[in-house]
């Protein structure tokens, strides 16, 4: 589903990701862990085309994301191509980023009507259904500012799902929440993981969640993959010293 081929990302002279190769299968749940500044967010932002790759190719569903095929050669993608590929990818942000000038309903129907061309009624039905899923059906006509952080994040998840994405990107979606609100959001994500076949790429510091949610965990450091293993293996018997150190630090053991 997702393929990184020799991807490099630089900000000026600062090489943030270097020569990155990995694949994520369709329907797979992959969690990225690693110390701050190791490039986890950057990977998600590249997938969302919020940043452009410096080198290499990213493919999603077989199609190059950062590039497009023209006369048999790969050339840098234009805005139209990026938008086309991006339609199949959804992202949930650490800070929710709901549109404060719209109601919850407005947030949910905006992109399906404007981008997918759904009718107002179809989009509305979808919004109702998704708000039911995230347990906020009664908040449909509220403004985001009147919701708690946890509720806002659940709306943001519903908003991403409203686009029926093939791929969902989650960047530390519980980090900005009060501790008592974290469990509700994680429970929702587990439910989505179990009931859909969406490919999920997730950055989190919740190691317990990473362990039982993901099929695979990738440990990052300095813009490289240090270790890539199933969670039961990586969390119980990490092979690399960097992984052992990192887990000791975050798990306090």
């Amino acid at each position, binding site marked *: 589903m997702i393929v990184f081929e020799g991807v490099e990302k630089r900000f000026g002279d600062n090489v943030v990701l270097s020569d990155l190769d990995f694949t994520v299968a369709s329907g797979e749940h992959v969690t990225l862990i690693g110390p701050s500044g190791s490039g986890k967010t950057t990977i998600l932002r590249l997938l*969302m*085309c*919020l940043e452009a790759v410096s080198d290499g190719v990213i493919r999603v569903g077989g199609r190059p994301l950062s590039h497009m095929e023209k006369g048999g050669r790969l050339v840098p993608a234009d*805005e139209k191509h990026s*938008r086309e590929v*991006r*339609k199949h*990818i*959804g*992202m949930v*942000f650490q*800070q929710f*980023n*709901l*549109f*404060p*000038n*719209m109601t919850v309903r407005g947030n949910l129907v*905006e*992109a399906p009507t*404007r*981008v997918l061309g759904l009718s107002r009624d179809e989009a509305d039905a979808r919004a109702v259904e998704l708000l039911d899923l995230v347990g906020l059906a009664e908040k449909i006509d509220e403004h985001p500012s009147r919701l708690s952080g946890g509720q806002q994040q659940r709306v943001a998840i519903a*908003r*991403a799902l409203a*686009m029926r994405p093939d791929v969902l990107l989650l960047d530390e979606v519980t980090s900005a929440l009060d501790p008592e609100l974290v469990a509700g959001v994680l429970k929702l994500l587990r439910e989505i993981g179990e009931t859909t076949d969406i490919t999920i790429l997730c950055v989190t510091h919740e190691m317990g969640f990473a362990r039982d949610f993901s099929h695979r965990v990738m440990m990052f450091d300095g813009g490289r993959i240090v270790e890539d293993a199933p969670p039961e293996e990586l969390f119980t018997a990490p092979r690399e010293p960097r992984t052992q150190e990192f887990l000791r630090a975050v798990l306090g053991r």
Partner: protein
Amino acid sequence: MTWDWNYVADVLPALLDGLRITVIATLLGSLVALVLGLVFAVLMRGPAPVRVVVRALVEFVRSTPLLVQVFFLFFVLPQFGVTLGALVVGVIALGLHYAAYNSEVYRAGIEAVPRGQWEAATALSLPRSRVWTGVVLPQAIPRVLPALGNNVISMFKETPLLIGIGVLDIVGQAREAGNTTFRYVEVYTIAGLLFLVLSYPAALLVRRLERRVVGT
């Protein structure tokens, strides 16, 4: 010799007619300035060549006198075959001048919209035009309404310089009356009071709006 109420009664209709012109010039000029200022502000976030040109134009307009700009349009446009009435030229000049000021106001409002809003809109694949009209501007504009309101009031007080190209606004009428009767105290005092009577309440209104916006 100092104040003659009968004279006041005689000239008041002319002054009020001038006030009408002043208000029309302000309203139309502000309309141009509000729209064009927004266009400038959006272009300032466009690709480099556009951005640089618009930036330079805005700085130039803000650094030179409105009166000379009025003369410029009034005398130069006809040479390019565009003949417009003095009032229309005045509206265009006022609009352009204040568009430069408004563009700075809008820009500040746009910059105050968090990056995350742009990114969320992009992540949802919203088209560029909809990101502006649906997400960014609805958040940016309410915050800058007081500043835009202040610019309308400033423009109102600056319209009298259109007498330089023969517009018979309130000061133009006052000057006509003064020059025929050689009585200046009444006409210019009334002209001043008329400005005060309209602009002071407007300024109070804007200050109230300011507090409300800050409060949200």
